[in-house]
């Protein structure tokens, strides 16, 4: 899923400062799961902003709504009426959702209320970890299902650097050394020979490095 984190209220306050009528629009998919922009977060943020504005003597009207997915036009359209009633939209979706909203509604500014952080998993309640960087050329088969391009701070593909100690990355003891995990996993799978093979430089052409990517499925086009 896409993991995001709500922006600090001080920054949100600043972003919406020029407007008196604001729609806070939540997204009921990824950002809901990571407690950044679902229905509950919309309600909490709206109350907090109303309270802050009241204490500061600023007039503001806040409307709340949450759609299933802000990255799909079908769901976005449900917010059309609410959008037309407001001067600005504070989107609590990921960056893709914010942009999809901006594409659909050209008259009101769409403002981000969330920092989109990564593609990851819910490792345990309250802990989300980054696992994939969407490089477009998946090599997980070689690495025992652990991605060194994403999880090694140096994107090394031919083994760990000299800074790996006790299973930790040199960058921080809070970070597992991806290569340590890969080696442990391949040992358990009896596939350590994978690591004897020299892996040539990665093909980054399939990544964002070649510019924004498109996926075309003609069989699904109308």
């Amino acid at each position, binding site marked *: 899923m896409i993991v995001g984190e709500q922006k600090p209220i001080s920054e949100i306050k600043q972003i919406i400062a020029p407007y008196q009528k604001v729609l806070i629009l939540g997204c009921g998919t990824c950002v809901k799961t990571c407690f950044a922009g679902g229905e509950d977060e919309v309600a909490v943020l709206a109350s907090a902003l109303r309270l802050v504005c009241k204490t500061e003597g600023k007039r503001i009207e806040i409307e709340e709504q949450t759609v299933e997915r802000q990255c799909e036009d079908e769901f976005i359209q449900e917010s059309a009426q609410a959008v037309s009633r407001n001067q600005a939209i504070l989107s609590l979706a990921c960056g893709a959702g914010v942009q999809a909203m901006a594409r659909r509604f050209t008259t009101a500014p769409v403002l981000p209320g969330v920092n989109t952080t990564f593609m990851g998993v819910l490792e345990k309640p309250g802990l989300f970890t980054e696992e994939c960087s969407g490089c477009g050329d998946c090599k997980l088969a070689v690495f025992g299902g652990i991605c060194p391009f994403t999880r090694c*701070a*140096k*994107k*090394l*593909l*031919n*083994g*760990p*650097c*000299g*800074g*790996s*100690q*006790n*299973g930790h990355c*040199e*960058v*921080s003891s809070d970070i597992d*050394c991806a290569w*340590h995990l890969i*080696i*442990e996993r391949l040992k358990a799978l009896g596939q*350590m020979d994978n*690591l*004897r093979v*020299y*892996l*040539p*430089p*990665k093909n*980054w052409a399939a990544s964002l490095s070649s510019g924004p990517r498109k996926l075309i499925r003609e069989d699904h086009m109308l």
Partner: protein
Amino acid sequence: MKIESTGKLQRVLNSGGFAVTAECGPPRGADAEIVRKKGELLKGCVDAVNVTDNQTAIVRMSSIAACAHLVTMGIEPVMQMVTRDRNRIALQSDIMGAYSLGITNILCLSGDHQTFGSQPDALNVFDIDSMNLVRTVQTMREQGQDMSGFELKGAPRMFIGAAANPFADPFEYRVMRLAKKIDAGADFIQTQCVYNLARFKAWMKMAQDEGLTEKVHILAGVTPMKSVGMAKYMATRVAGMDVPEGLIKRMEGVAKPKVAEEGIKICLETIAALREIQGVHGIHLMAIEWEDVVERIVSEAGLLPRP
């Protein structure tokens, strides 16, 4: 046919000699005089001088430029090159540029992560890894081609070095990684500083059992410790460093004015022990911001005059 580079370091190693290299960190500024002063201290007492590439991710004069200053002084540099800051296009271009300036040795590294440096906000590159860089330099040298297969007009005939850290984890993979670096094209290896001799010997034994010491020249890293603070810092704060408790106690056990002397003594004992280990073909003496001690250590270790 393996094409030879043209440097002294290679001649010493290939003739079965015991090589000595030192290190010169370029200044945080544009003053070439600082490089020359460090060069003067090292000239004649080592075979080649490693010039670091923005080590610990702190911006310094470029390794290529500092190497070029040393070349004009008649000192042979080992240009360190990290994959942290340049993509494959810039790396290949700089390898050719460096060789055109008379730089004949390269040490291929991934580089300290930028979070350790003075500008942790920087974006890192890591387009290729150190293993890929070794292979790239080898292909340029032996096939005379860049990474695209383009025929170069003049191949950079670099003597290729790589790093190995016998003290990093997972230990059992370290020798496998060394083998991979040799296969990729490494001619010589410079290791992380050796303080834990037992672990270094265990690693060398594993390398020897795999037949690797026959295929590559291993230069063991040594760093004299100047103070108890430095010893403790290296033991606890430097990634991939293994300083046994006993050595720190030994440094603590002498009167303060004699601590640096004790550090030199430990360094000399380490060098003597390293020379006894089969497969160790030299030392890489990293006297960090203490270049004026190099001549004395090399001399007292009985390694002067240099060939």
